[in-house]
Protein backbone atom coordinates (compact mmCIF):
# COMPACT_ATOMS: atom_id res chain seq x y z
CA UNK A 1 0.00 0.00 0.00
CA UNK A 2 1.24 3.50 -0.76
CA UNK A 3 2.28 5.40 2.34
CA UNK A 4 0.76 8.77 3.16
CA UNK A 5 3.36 11.54 2.69
CA UNK A 6 3.42 15.29 2.19
CA UNK A 7 2.82 16.17 -1.50
CA UNK A 8 5.75 15.58 -3.87
CA UNK A 9 6.05 19.27 -4.77
CA UNK A 10 6.36 20.13 -1.08
CA UNK A 11 9.07 17.48 -0.61
CA UNK A 12 11.05 18.70 -3.64
CA UNK A 13 10.91 22.34 -2.64
CA UNK A 14 13.78 22.33 -0.08
CA UNK A 15 16.20 20.79 -2.59
CA UNK A 16 15.21 23.35 -5.24
CA UNK A 17 15.45 26.26 -2.81
CA UNK A 18 18.83 24.99 -1.56
CA UNK A 19 20.18 25.01 -5.10
CA UNK A 20 18.80 28.49 -5.66
CA UNK A 21 20.21 29.90 -2.42
CA UNK A 22 23.61 28.35 -3.15
CA UNK A 23 23.58 29.90 -6.65
CA UNK A 24 22.61 33.25 -5.11
CA UNK A 25 25.46 32.98 -2.60
CA UNK A 26 27.91 32.28 -5.44
CA UNK A 27 26.59 35.21 -7.46
CA UNK A 28 26.70 37.51 -4.44
CA UNK A 29 30.27 36.62 -3.49
CA UNK A 30 31.64 36.91 -7.03
CA UNK A 31 29.84 40.19 -7.59
CA UNK A 32 30.85 41.56 -4.19
CA UNK A 33 34.50 40.70 -4.87
CA UNK A 34 34.27 42.49 -8.22
CA UNK A 35 32.50 45.48 -6.69
CA UNK A 36 35.03 45.65 -3.83
CA UNK A 37 37.90 45.77 -6.31
CA UNK A 38 36.18 48.55 -8.26
CA UNK A 39 35.42 50.46 -5.08
CA UNK A 40 39.08 50.36 -4.08
CA UNK A 41 40.24 51.44 -7.52
CA UNK A 42 37.64 54.13 -8.20
CA UNK A 43 35.54 54.93 -5.14
CA UNK A 44 32.38 57.01 -5.30
CA UNK A 45 31.76 57.01 -9.02
CA UNK A 46 28.13 56.30 -10.00
CA UNK A 47 29.18 52.98 -11.51
CA UNK A 48 30.85 51.64 -8.36
CA UNK A 49 28.02 52.92 -6.18
CA UNK A 50 25.51 51.00 -8.28
CA UNK A 51 27.75 47.95 -8.10
CA UNK A 52 27.91 48.24 -4.34
CA UNK A 53 24.11 48.53 -4.24
CA UNK A 54 23.69 45.43 -6.41
CA UNK A 55 26.12 43.53 -4.18
CA UNK A 56 24.08 44.49 -1.11
CA UNK A 57 20.85 43.48 -2.82
CA UNK A 58 22.34 40.11 -3.76
CA UNK A 59 23.49 39.62 -0.18
CA UNK A 60 20.02 40.43 1.12
CA UNK A 61 18.64 37.96 -1.43
CA UNK A 62 20.81 35.20 0.03
CA UNK A 63 19.65 35.89 3.59
CA UNK A 64 15.97 36.13 2.62
CA UNK A 65 16.26 33.02 0.45
CA UNK A 66 17.75 31.18 3.43
CA UNK A 67 14.94 32.35 5.71
CA UNK A 68 12.36 31.17 3.13
CA UNK A 69 14.15 27.82 2.90
CA UNK A 70 14.05 27.39 6.67
CA UNK A 71 10.30 28.10 6.56
CA UNK A 72 9.81 25.48 3.83
CA UNK A 73 11.80 22.91 5.83
CA UNK A 74 9.77 23.63 8.95
CA UNK A 75 6.46 23.28 7.07
CA UNK A 76 7.63 19.90 5.82
CA UNK A 77 8.64 18.81 9.32
CA UNK A 78 5.34 20.05 10.76
CA UNK A 79 3.46 17.97 8.20
CA UNK A 80 5.49 14.87 9.02
CA UNK A 81 4.99 15.41 12.75
CA UNK A 82 1.24 15.96 12.29
CA UNK A 83 1.05 12.81 10.21
CA UNK A 84 2.94 10.80 12.85
CA UNK A 85 0.71 12.22 15.59
CA UNK A 86 -2.40 11.41 13.57
CA UNK A 87 -1.18 7.85 13.02
CA UNK A 88 -0.57 7.35 16.74
CA UNK A 89 -3.87 9.00 17.67
CA UNK A 90 -5.80 6.90 15.16
CA UNK A 91 -4.53 3.58 16.50
CA UNK A 92 -5.31 4.70 20.06
CA UNK A 93 -8.85 5.63 19.02
CA UNK A 94 -9.31 2.33 17.18
CA UNK A 95 -8.04 0.23 20.11
CA UNK A 96 -10.31 2.08 22.54
CA UNK A 97 -13.28 1.61 20.24
CA UNK A 98 -12.59 -2.13 19.91
CA UNK A 99 -12.55 -2.46 23.71
CA UNK A 100 -15.76 -0.46 23.87
CA UNK A 101 -17.48 -2.86 21.47
CA UNK A 102 -16.23 -5.75 23.65
CA UNK A 103 -14.60 -7.56 20.75
CA UNK A 104 -13.05 -10.92 21.67
CA UNK A 105 -9.25 -11.19 21.16
CA UNK A 106 -9.79 -13.15 17.91
CA UNK A 107 -12.31 -10.59 16.65
CA UNK A 108 -9.92 -7.77 17.58
CA UNK A 109 -7.12 -9.34 15.50
CA UNK A 110 -9.40 -9.90 12.54
CA UNK A 111 -10.82 -6.38 12.82
CA UNK A 112 -7.31 -4.84 12.80
CA UNK A 113 -6.34 -6.84 9.73
CA UNK A 114 -9.57 -5.87 7.98
CA UNK A 115 -8.91 -2.18 8.77
CA UNK A 116 -5.41 -2.53 7.32
CA UNK A 117 -7.02 -3.55 4.02
CA UNK A 118 -6.46 -7.32 4.00
CA UNK A 119 -9.23 -9.41 2.41
CA UNK A 120 -10.84 -12.50 3.90
CA UNK A 121 -8.51 -14.96 2.14
CA UNK A 122 -5.42 -13.06 3.30
CA UNK A 123 -6.66 -12.84 6.89
CA UNK A 124 -7.49 -16.56 6.90
CA UNK A 125 -4.03 -17.42 5.55
CA UNK A 126 -2.35 -15.15 8.10
CA UNK A 127 -4.30 -16.57 11.04
CA UNK A 128 -4.23 -20.16 9.78
CA UNK A 129 -7.99 -20.46 10.02
CA UNK A 130 -10.74 -21.24 7.53
CA UNK A 131 -12.17 -18.43 5.40
CA UNK A 132 -15.63 -19.28 6.75
CA UNK A 133 -14.40 -18.65 10.31
CA UNK A 134 -12.93 -15.27 9.34
CA UNK A 135 -16.18 -14.33 7.57
CA UNK A 136 -18.18 -15.19 10.66
CA UNK A 137 -15.81 -13.26 12.92
CA UNK A 138 -16.00 -10.22 10.63
CA UNK A 139 -19.79 -10.44 10.58
CA UNK A 140 -19.83 -10.35 14.41
CA UNK A 141 -17.42 -7.38 14.38
CA UNK A 142 -19.66 -5.46 11.95
CA UNK A 143 -22.71 -6.32 14.03
CA UNK A 144 -21.07 -5.08 17.26
CA UNK A 145 -19.98 -1.91 15.47
CA UNK A 146 -23.42 -1.46 13.97
CA UNK A 147 -22.20 -1.19 10.39
CA UNK A 148 -23.26 -3.01 7.23
CA UNK A 149 -19.83 -3.98 5.93
CA UNK A 150 -16.11 -3.31 5.59
CA UNK A 151 -16.41 0.05 3.79
CA UNK A 152 -18.66 1.49 6.48
CA UNK A 153 -16.47 -0.06 9.18
CA UNK A 154 -13.35 1.74 7.86
CA UNK A 155 -15.30 4.94 7.21
CA UNK A 156 -16.29 5.02 10.89
CA UNK A 157 -12.70 5.72 11.92
CA UNK A 158 -11.87 8.09 9.09
CA UNK A 159 -14.97 10.05 9.96
CA UNK A 160 -14.00 10.07 13.61
CA UNK A 161 -10.56 11.44 12.67
CA UNK A 162 -12.03 14.20 10.52
CA UNK A 163 -14.73 15.13 12.99
CA UNK A 164 -12.26 15.39 15.87
CA UNK A 165 -10.35 17.90 13.81
CA UNK A 166 -6.93 16.25 13.88
CA UNK A 167 -5.16 18.87 11.76
CA UNK A 168 -5.04 18.02 8.11
CA UNK A 169 -1.50 18.74 6.91
CA UNK A 170 -2.27 21.76 4.67
CA UNK A 171 -4.56 23.36 7.16
CA UNK A 172 -1.95 22.92 9.89
CA UNK A 173 0.75 24.85 8.14
CA UNK A 174 -1.63 27.53 6.95
CA UNK A 175 -2.61 28.03 10.56
CA UNK A 176 1.01 28.13 11.78
CA UNK A 177 1.84 30.63 9.04
CA UNK A 178 -0.96 32.89 10.15
CA UNK A 179 0.36 32.73 13.69
CA UNK A 180 3.91 33.58 12.67
Amino acid sequence: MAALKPPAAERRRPALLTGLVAAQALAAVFFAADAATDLLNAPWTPHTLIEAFVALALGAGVVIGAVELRAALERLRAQETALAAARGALSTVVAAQFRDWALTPAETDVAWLALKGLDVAEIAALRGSAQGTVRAQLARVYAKAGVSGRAQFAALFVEELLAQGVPEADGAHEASRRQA
Partner: protein
Amino acid sequence: MRPADTPPAKAVGGDPHPPVLWDPVVRLTHWTIAVAIVVNYALTEDGGTTHVWVGYLALAILVLRLVWGFVGPAEARFAAFPPAPRAALAHLADLAAGRPGRYRSHNPAGALMAYALWAMLAVVIATGILMTAGGPGDEALMRAAVERDDWSILTGATPWVGDAAAEVLEEVHEVAANLLLLLAALHIAGVAVESRAMRTNLVRAMLPWRR
Protein backbone atom coordinates in the same frame (compact mmCIF):
# COMPACT_ATOMS: atom_id res chain seq x y z
CA MET B 1 7.05 -1.69 17.88
CA ARG B 2 10.31 0.07 18.59
CA PRO B 3 12.21 -0.98 21.72
CA ALA B 4 11.98 1.67 24.41
CA ASP B 5 15.71 2.42 24.57
CA THR B 6 16.16 3.49 20.93
CA PRO B 7 15.44 7.13 20.16
CA PRO B 8 12.41 7.98 18.04
CA ALA B 9 13.04 8.54 14.33
CA LYS B 10 12.01 12.17 14.57
CA ALA B 11 12.70 14.49 17.47
CA VAL B 12 9.36 14.78 19.26
CA GLY B 13 10.74 15.63 22.67
CA GLY B 14 12.36 12.89 24.75
CA ASP B 15 16.08 12.08 24.70
CA PRO B 16 18.15 14.29 22.43
CA HIS B 17 19.87 12.63 19.51
CA PRO B 18 21.74 13.98 16.48
CA PRO B 19 19.65 14.61 13.36
CA VAL B 20 18.66 11.51 11.41
CA LEU B 21 19.25 13.58 8.30
CA TRP B 22 20.90 17.01 8.23
CA ASP B 23 19.01 19.66 6.27
CA PRO B 24 19.90 20.15 2.57
CA VAL B 25 21.93 23.34 3.15
CA VAL B 26 24.16 21.69 5.76
CA ARG B 27 24.73 18.72 3.46
CA LEU B 28 25.35 20.79 0.32
CA THR B 29 27.79 23.15 2.06
CA HIS B 30 29.56 20.23 3.79
CA TRP B 31 30.29 18.32 0.60
CA THR B 32 31.02 21.38 -1.57
CA ILE B 33 33.67 22.53 0.90
CA ALA B 34 35.08 19.00 1.21
CA VAL B 35 35.39 18.70 -2.58
CA ALA B 36 36.80 22.23 -2.91
CA ILE B 37 39.51 21.45 -0.33
CA VAL B 38 40.52 18.21 -2.06
CA VAL B 39 40.42 19.78 -5.54
CA ASN B 40 42.51 22.80 -4.58
CA TYR B 41 44.94 20.75 -2.54
CA ALA B 42 45.57 17.98 -5.02
CA LEU B 43 44.28 18.79 -8.48
CA THR B 44 44.55 22.46 -9.43
CA GLU B 45 47.75 24.33 -10.15
CA ASP B 46 48.70 26.48 -7.14
CA GLY B 47 47.67 30.06 -7.84
CA GLY B 48 46.21 29.12 -11.24
CA THR B 49 42.89 30.47 -12.49
CA THR B 50 40.94 27.32 -11.54
CA HIS B 51 42.52 27.31 -8.08
CA VAL B 52 41.38 30.91 -7.53
CA TRP B 53 37.85 30.22 -8.83
CA VAL B 54 37.48 27.18 -6.59
CA GLY B 55 38.66 29.36 -3.69
CA TYR B 56 35.91 31.89 -4.38
CA LEU B 57 33.38 29.05 -4.67
CA ALA B 58 34.48 27.83 -1.22
CA LEU B 59 34.11 31.39 0.12
CA ALA B 60 30.53 31.65 -1.21
CA ILE B 61 29.61 28.29 0.30
CA LEU B 62 31.27 29.13 3.62
CA VAL B 63 29.33 32.42 3.73
CA LEU B 64 26.11 30.50 3.04
CA ARG B 65 26.83 28.07 5.89
CA LEU B 66 27.59 30.94 8.27
CA VAL B 67 24.33 32.70 7.30
CA TRP B 68 22.57 29.36 7.86
CA GLY B 69 24.11 29.28 11.33
CA PHE B 70 21.85 32.21 12.21
CA VAL B 71 18.69 31.57 10.16
CA GLY B 72 18.68 27.79 9.63
CA PRO B 73 16.69 25.15 11.52
CA ALA B 74 17.46 24.67 15.22
CA GLU B 75 20.10 21.93 14.90
CA ALA B 76 22.04 23.84 12.21
CA ARG B 77 22.30 27.04 14.25
CA PHE B 78 25.42 28.07 16.13
CA ALA B 79 23.24 28.37 19.23
CA ALA B 80 22.74 24.57 19.12
CA PHE B 81 26.48 23.89 19.22
CA PRO B 82 28.33 26.77 20.90
CA PRO B 83 32.13 26.43 21.09
CA ALA B 84 32.75 24.97 24.56
CA PRO B 85 36.29 23.58 24.97
CA ARG B 86 35.64 22.25 28.48
CA ALA B 87 32.47 20.41 27.38
CA ALA B 88 34.47 19.07 24.42
CA LEU B 89 37.11 17.60 26.75
CA ALA B 90 34.39 16.14 28.98
CA HIS B 91 32.79 14.60 25.92
CA LEU B 92 36.11 13.06 24.82
CA ALA B 93 36.53 11.59 28.31
CA ASP B 94 33.01 10.10 28.09
CA LEU B 95 33.87 8.76 24.66
CA ALA B 96 37.08 7.14 25.94
CA ALA B 97 35.03 5.57 28.75
CA GLY B 98 32.70 4.17 26.09
CA ARG B 99 29.61 6.11 27.13
CA PRO B 100 29.33 9.16 24.85
CA GLY B 101 26.37 11.45 25.54
CA ARG B 102 23.80 12.24 22.91
CA TYR B 103 23.23 15.76 21.63
CA ARG B 104 20.63 17.13 19.28
CA SER B 105 23.27 18.79 17.10
CA HIS B 106 27.05 18.29 16.92
CA ASN B 107 28.60 16.88 20.10
CA PRO B 108 30.84 19.45 21.86
CA ALA B 109 34.04 17.99 20.37
CA GLY B 110 32.49 17.86 16.89
CA ALA B 111 31.30 21.45 17.31
CA LEU B 112 34.81 22.60 18.19
CA MET B 113 36.09 20.77 15.12
CA ALA B 114 33.50 22.51 12.92
CA TYR B 115 34.60 25.93 14.20
CA ALA B 116 38.28 25.03 13.78
CA LEU B 117 37.66 23.88 10.20
CA TRP B 118 35.70 27.03 9.35
CA ALA B 119 38.31 29.31 10.94
CA MET B 120 41.16 27.55 9.12
CA LEU B 121 39.22 27.69 5.85
CA ALA B 122 38.61 31.40 6.39
CA VAL B 123 42.37 31.95 6.89
CA VAL B 124 43.18 30.02 3.70
CA ILE B 125 40.54 31.96 1.73
CA ALA B 126 41.50 35.38 3.14
CA THR B 127 45.21 34.93 2.41
CA GLY B 128 44.30 33.55 -1.01
CA ILE B 129 42.22 36.61 -1.85
CA LEU B 130 44.94 38.99 -0.67
CA MET B 131 47.49 37.15 -2.81
CA THR B 132 45.35 37.36 -5.94
CA ALA B 133 44.56 41.03 -5.34
CA GLY B 134 40.82 40.64 -5.28
CA GLY B 135 38.40 39.45 -7.90
CA PRO B 136 38.47 36.07 -9.60
CA GLY B 137 38.87 37.71 -13.00
CA ASP B 138 41.54 40.31 -12.32
CA GLU B 139 42.61 40.73 -15.94
CA ALA B 140 41.02 44.20 -16.03
CA LEU B 141 42.91 45.09 -12.88
CA MET B 142 46.10 43.88 -14.48
CA ARG B 143 45.48 45.94 -17.60
CA ALA B 144 44.64 49.00 -15.51
CA ALA B 145 47.84 48.58 -13.51
CA VAL B 146 49.91 48.28 -16.65
CA GLU B 147 48.22 51.39 -18.06
CA ARG B 148 49.26 53.22 -14.90
CA ASP B 149 52.81 52.11 -15.72
CA ASP B 150 52.76 49.79 -12.70
CA TRP B 151 54.30 46.60 -14.04
CA SER B 152 54.84 45.04 -10.65
CA ILE B 153 51.65 43.04 -11.09
CA LEU B 154 53.24 41.13 -13.95
CA THR B 155 56.44 40.41 -12.07
CA GLY B 156 54.69 38.51 -9.34
CA ALA B 157 54.26 41.17 -6.67
CA THR B 158 50.61 41.95 -5.94
CA PRO B 159 49.34 45.53 -6.03
CA TRP B 160 47.68 45.20 -2.60
CA VAL B 161 50.73 44.16 -0.64
CA GLY B 162 54.49 44.52 -0.89
CA ASP B 163 56.96 41.75 -1.71
CA ALA B 164 57.73 40.87 1.89
CA ALA B 165 54.07 40.76 2.85
CA ALA B 166 53.29 38.63 -0.21
CA GLU B 167 55.80 36.05 0.95
CA VAL B 168 54.31 35.98 4.43
CA LEU B 169 50.82 35.61 2.92
CA GLU B 170 51.96 32.70 0.79
CA GLU B 171 53.58 31.03 3.78
CA VAL B 172 50.45 31.46 5.91
CA HIS B 173 48.26 30.25 3.03
CA GLU B 174 50.29 27.05 2.69
CA VAL B 175 50.61 26.32 6.40
CA ALA B 176 46.88 26.96 6.94
CA ALA B 177 46.01 24.73 3.97
CA ASN B 178 48.08 21.89 5.44
CA LEU B 179 46.49 22.40 8.86
CA LEU B 180 43.08 22.39 7.19
CA LEU B 181 43.82 19.00 5.66
CA LEU B 182 45.07 17.70 9.02
CA LEU B 183 41.87 18.92 10.71
CA ALA B 184 39.79 17.26 7.99
CA ALA B 185 41.59 13.96 8.63
CA LEU B 186 40.95 14.30 12.38
CA HIS B 187 37.31 15.13 11.61
CA ILE B 188 36.92 11.91 9.59
CA ALA B 189 38.59 9.89 12.34
CA GLY B 190 36.30 11.55 14.90
CA VAL B 191 33.20 10.63 12.91
CA ALA B 192 34.41 7.02 12.64
CA VAL B 193 35.11 6.71 16.38
CA GLU B 194 31.87 8.44 17.34
CA SER B 195 29.84 6.26 14.95
CA ARG B 196 31.32 3.12 16.54
CA ALA B 197 30.69 4.33 20.07
CA MET B 198 27.10 5.42 19.33
CA ARG B 199 26.41 2.36 17.14
CA THR B 200 24.94 4.83 14.63
CA ASN B 201 26.44 5.47 11.22
CA LEU B 202 26.73 9.26 11.45
CA VAL B 203 27.72 9.54 7.78
CA ARG B 204 24.21 8.50 6.75
CA ALA B 205 22.80 11.75 8.14
CA MET B 206 25.15 13.70 5.86
CA LEU B 207 24.59 11.76 2.61
CA PRO B 208 23.74 14.32 -0.07
CA TRP B 209 21.17 12.34 -2.05
CA ARG B 210 18.87 11.20 0.79
CA ARG B 211 15.50 12.86 1.39
